[in-house]
Structure formats: structure tokens, C-alpha cells
């Protein structure tokens, strides 16, 4: 189910910044929180807006459209109007590259519980 994909070099995403990718139709966001990389489904669980258009403050990612906030390390919802956690993807840093385990599109259709 899904596979690791090399998406960026580590120096392409400096601390406090994010980058957006589309892998086989899956929108993937990567955030750099104090040197740690976190990958997530780049669709706000409120109204599917691209989260990388929002802003990152420490570990808090805020959606630009309606302000839903997530803890980007865990996907946990921190503020309304989102009510469902953000699907997080596994990340590995291999030889200076950021690899993300991107699931298949239909796996994402499952409601995150």
C-alpha cells in the first residue's frame, strides 16, 4: 500500500517552511519544524483547501481559508472549524533527501478516525 517517494532535498525546505507536491493524484505537504520533517495530506479536513497555502508557526499549521489549525507533528486538530485530524504520512531522510510514504488515493477516501 503506497510507496516511499523522494520528494525534495533537505535544504530545499528550510525550517518554518513548507512545500507542496502531487504524487499519483495525492496532494502531499512537507513541513520543516525545527529541522524535523513532517509530511501530511495537503488538504484541510474542513473544506479540502491546500494547507501549504496557509502559515506555519512552530508546530502549528493554520489553513488560510477558514483558519483551522493542526499540530503538524501529529495531525491533531487544534482549532475549529476542522473537526477531523489530518492524515500524516511517514517520512524518512536518506542521504540528504526527504522521502515520503505516499498512500494511494483511495486509501485517503477512508474517513480518518
Amino acid at each position, binding site marked *: 500500500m503506497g510507496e516511499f517517494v523522494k520528494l525534495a532535498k533537505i535544504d530545499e525546505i528550510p525550517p518554518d517552511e513548507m512545500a507542496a507536491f502531487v504524487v499519483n493524484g495525492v496532494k502531499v505537504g512537507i513541513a520543516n519544524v525545527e529541522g524535523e520533517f513532517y509530511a501530511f495530506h495537503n488538504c484541510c479536513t474542513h473544506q479540502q483547501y491546500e494547507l501549504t497555502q*496557509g*502559515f506555519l508557526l512552530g508546530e502549528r499549521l*493554520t*489553513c*488560510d*481559508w*477558514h*483558519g*483551522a*489549525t493542526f499540530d503538524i507533528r501529529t495531525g491533531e486538530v*487544534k*482549532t*475549529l*472549524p476542522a*473537526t*477531523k485530524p489530518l492524515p500524516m504520512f511517514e517520512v524518512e531522510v536518506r542521504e540528504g533527501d526527504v522521502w515520503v510514504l505516499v498512500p494511494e488515493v483511495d486509501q485517503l477516501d477512508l*474517513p480518518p*478516525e
Partner: protein
Amino acid sequence: MPYDQNVAALNLDDYKYGFKDPDKYVFRSEKGLSKRVVEQISAMKEEPEWMLKFRLQALKVYESKPVPKWGADLSALDMDQIYFYVKPSEKEGRSWDEVPEDIKRTFDRLGIPEAERKSLAGVGAQYESEMVYHKIKEELSAQGVIFDSIEDGLRNHPDLFRQYFATVIPMNDNKYAALNSAVWSGGSFIYVPPGVEVDVPLQAYFRINSENLGQFERTLIIADEGAKLHYIEGCTAPSYSTDSFHSGVIEIIVNRGANVRYTTIQNWSHNMYNLVTQRARVEEGARMAWLDGNLGSKVTMKYPSCYLMGRGASGEILSIAYAGPGQHQDAGGKMIHVAPHTSSEIVSKSISKGGGRSSYRGLVQVQKGAHNASSNVECDALLLDEDARTDTYPYIEIDENDASIGHEATVSKIGDEQLFYLMQRGLAKEEARTMVVRGFIEPIAKHLPLEYAVELNRLVELEMEGSVG
């Protein structure tokens, strides 16, 4: 049927709260909105650094969001003409005697000390941009109930404040929530500890006196587990020929098993843009009830909402709107069912007359996992003449198959049969019409505290005068 008198513009002299006092203030920001104004507000309040950052971020968000194209027409609202912050006095009064004399006189005329005598649990009063008075019964504060201005909440209870502030309504929620987040001033901070039941209401009065003022109160209410609270707010302003602006943000946390009722009777003058965001987060077994009365203002856009987050949570919205000449009431509510066995009810009644427009706009959403949710929505619109307009825009979004969802709306005028019947009983036509209207709003009026119910009825009578051609 000719209702010519209705078509004539509402005589603003009829507005009982239209009196104005001379402008007096200790500080007033320059007209319009800027980074400087935001920084001034924050500095005046001697806020922690994080709040200034929050405000400045919110200003950016506000500037980046377009004016909504749906709802009421906001094109005439000129932000450059608005004073965003006016500080009326040096400090908040702890006793009624400490409130400056002229402000006190205003609230005397509005009947506040009188209301306080009526054994309320507490009273707060906001004049222009600041709370000028907050008082809670001693036995309640002894039980740990906090009823402060929002500024005192931040100052005296920083951890509790920060834990909940902007978690129910984040700054990006909508353009006007962002604006409030940037320039908020005044409003209440309320905390009711676990198990404490505040049986009589806490009441707050909001008064705008100056012309072209923007009032941006921010209220944060936390009802802890099993707590109970009823909060009432009333709003008035003088009638000016230019527009004023009110944009509040009200966040409510209703923890497990708690019960909160929030009542607003908005009777702003007819030059007020009233754009308010109100939202409650309702946890397991808790109950939130909004009673939203929109009688005044030029334009209102206001949709109290409940996020039913915990199993068995329930929400209620009773909404009543009156739209006379030149008024557009765009009101309604949202019920978001997140957890199983949640239930909600929305009852909306509107009366439109003489070119006035009232719109119901609502959302009922049942999310995946919210099994056995039930929701019922009823909207009734009464049109008093042929120039009135009413709209109904319900959104129903259902993601669970075991939900039970109903929505009904009707639009009607006062039936000739009804009038005939009442007139047969000896009532004059005008009285008969007033009686029909009273009957129409009765299901909501009965939930109001007596003085507001009386006020509502008085208003209806006033508006109905001369409505028979």
C-alpha cells in the same frame, strides 16, 4: 391592498434608544485601519507580546480576504470612515459609583442599575470600545465563577485564556472574525467551574455613542463540566446619518454535561452594520442554546453555530428577525454534528415590511461518524406588505445514513380569514394584525426574559402602527 404608510421610511424618532450624548473620551485612534492603530490598541492595553503578534497576523488575514459576495450588500461600508478604537474612561468601574457621570447617565436611561437590582447574577456594560463596568454577585465569585472584562481575563487568567482563546473561532474563519482578532476591545471573559450552576442570568449591555465608531467586542465563555450559565446581551446606539460598525466574536466552550444559554437582543440603530461571529463547541452530553433576536441595525449578518463534538451533545437556535424599511437581516445558524447521538433544532421566524429584507441562511451538517444524529429546522417568514422580501437558504449536508433530518419553510402573509375572524370578535383591523404578528413570534418570545419580551412586543406594536391602509 394599499399599505402606503408602510412604504414611507421608518421614522427614526420612533427608536427609543436613539438619543446621543456628547462625545467624551480619553483616547481615540485616528480614522481608518492601519498597523499603527492595531499597535496602539495593544499598547493601550499593555498586552503580552503574543497578543500583539496575534493581532498583527490577523490584520494581514483581514486584508487578504475579499468582502463576501453572498449575504447582505456591504459595498457601502466605508472602513476608512470608522474609528476602530475609542477609550471612554481611564478605568473600569468596580462599583456603579466609579463609572463616569455622563456614561452612568446613559446607562441609567437604558435601565441598567434597575436591571441589576432585579437580582441578576452579574452585570457588565461596554461603552464605545471598553467595558466600563463589571460586577458579579459575591456568592458566585466565592464559588469560583469569573466574570471579567476580556482584558482582565487575559491579565488575570493568562493560562486559561490562552488555552481557549481563538480555538473556537480562529482568525481566518472569515473576514470579520479576522478584523475582530486584529482590533478586538471589550467584551466578557466568563468561567464557570465544574458543577457550578448560575441560575439567574449574567447580563451585558453594549452601547455605541460616537458617530462612525467600530465596536469589536470579544467574548470568551468557558462552562466547565456540569456547569450552567445564561448570558444575555443587549445592544443599542444613537441614530446617526452615517454608518457605524459592530463586529463581535463570541466563543463558547461548553464542556461535558454543561448547559449554556446565550441570548442576544440586538436593537442597534438603523445605521449600524452588524457582522458578528458566534460559535460554541459543545462536548459530550452538553447543551448549547442560542436565542438570537435581530430587530435593529441596517445590515446584520449573523449565524450562531454549534459544533456538537461529544456524544449526546445538543444544540438549539431560536432566531427572530424583524426587517423594516432599509433593513436587511441575514441571519440563521449552523449545526455541525460531529459525534454520535447528537441532536439539534433551529426555529427561525422573520417579519419583513416596507422594503425590508430578511434572509434565513443555515447549515446542518452531519459528519461521518455522527451516527444517529437528528436535526429539525423550521423557518417561517411573515410578509407584511408587497414590498417586503424574504429568502431562505438552508444547506443540508449529510454524511451518515442513519441521520434523521428535516427542514420545512413557509412564507405567508397575514391571512384575510385570520383578520376576519379577529375583527368579528370586535378587534379593529390594526389590533387584529398586531395580534396575528404577536402570535407568530410567541414561540420565541416566550423564551425571552420578561423585560426583553415586553420590549419585543412594544417594538412589534410600534412597527405595526399605521400598517393598515
